[in-house]
């Protein structure tokens, strides 16, 4: 059953995933294993100690359901932190290395200058993604944990963490364009398949950034607001 509008906690988890395969990515990031049988979204989430509201908010955002400004006050910052952290691991530890491996294989001839230039570009791009994510892991996330614990000292605020995703996204886009416009050589299934992966990865990274910009940041703003009110 495919549906219009938001998924509800009482919908079956298997229905959600079967109808929206992109949700598979969300599953592993929340640490949810397959094999849902007839369990509802709520039951599965509880079993894996994931906040159901947060899960559904992330799903809605990925599926682009409903409106853009979800009610962030009902979200669990802990669950969202876990999601974002695992998402970083996924890109840096799995997805981007996978694309790199495939690229090396397709380009072949390691001593070719063009290959070197292309790999250099890709490595620079990955380095930028890594830096960006490391900043979040080392600065933003600890700050949010201190907010949760009520020990934030006010030396940082989420306003400092403003949107700097644009640049990283633009770089992958440029890489893709260069390959499409200028890559010489015969048409090959392998090269096209790598490009297909890059398009997909770009989409997933954009969704990830979207969740940071539209769920995570508003939630933290909300927490900061509450904290200043309590003082």
């Amino acid at each position, binding site marked *: 059953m495919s549906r219009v509008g938001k998924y509800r906690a009482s919908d079956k988890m298997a229905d959600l995933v079967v109808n929206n395969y992109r949700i598979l990515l969300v599953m592993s990031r929340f640490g949810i294993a397959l094999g849902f049988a007839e369990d509802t979204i709520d039951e599965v989430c509880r079993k894996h100690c994931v906040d159901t509201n947060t899960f559904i908010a992330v799903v809605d955002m990925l599926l682009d359901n409903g*409106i*853009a*400004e979800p009610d962030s006050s009902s979200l669990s910052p802990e669950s969202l932190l876990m999601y974002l952290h695992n998402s970083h691991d996924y890109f840096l530890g799995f997805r981007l290395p996978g694309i790199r491996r495939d690229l090396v294989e397709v380009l072949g001839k390691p001593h070719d*200058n*063009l290959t*070197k*230039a*292309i790999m*250099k*570009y890709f490595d*620079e791009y990955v380095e930028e993604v890594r830096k960006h994510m490391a900043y979040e892991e080392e600065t933003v996330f600890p700050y949010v944990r201190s907010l949760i614990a009520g020990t934030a000292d006010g030396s940082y605020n989420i*306003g400092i963490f*403003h949107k700097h995703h*644009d*640049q990283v996204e*633009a*770089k992958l*886009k*440029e*890489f893709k*364009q*260069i390959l499409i416009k*200028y*890559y*010489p050589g015969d048409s090959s299934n392998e090269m096209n398949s790598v490009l297909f992966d890059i398009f997909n990865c770009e989409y997933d990274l954009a969704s990830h950034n979207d969740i940071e910009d*539209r769920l995570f*940041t*508003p939630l933290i*703003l909300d927490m900061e607001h509450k904290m200043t009110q309590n003082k």
Partner: protein
Amino acid sequence: MSRPVRITIAESSEIIRRGLVAILKAIGTLQAEVNEVSDADQLKNSISWQRPDILVVNPSMLSVLPLQQIKKEAADTDMKCIALQSSLADSSVTRSFDEVFSIYDTGEQISDKLSRLMGKTDVDKRHESLSQREKEVIVCVVKGMTNKQIADKLCLSAHTVVTHRRNISAKLDIHSTAGLTIYAIVNKLVELDEIDRAEISE
């Protein structure tokens, strides 16, 4: 530049909102990051940190939240405001806007209005081919020379070098040195041994 245009759509009707989003997404030349809000409260909350370049708003929302106040919240004088008109209204209502979308506009009309509003000029540049001078500048950039060094070598002013580089970026849609390197190799602007001497050979 390649930064996407941030657009916020403030409209209470989901059908109209999503219809407009679909049209914006279909405009191939527009790189947009679209954000939707459904009421004046949400608009007020989101505008200060979303900082849209363009705000498309149903004027009926403005009875609660005047346009001047929105602009103040946005703290951005460059934000363009477009009225999204779904009903007949006195022209005084739309006068303070930069542009008006009617719900009867075609996708093409919306696209034209947006291009006009954003004063697009670099789009045309893409179809031009590179001049000889620009190719020389690329070669220098790829070799890792600074703007100053390029200016000295080609007997140009530093300012001219910057202009050349900007035009190159606009024509090729490549904005990084690493990207230009790939371009230069593929198009044989540089000899292989020159590249070897440059930073690419680690």
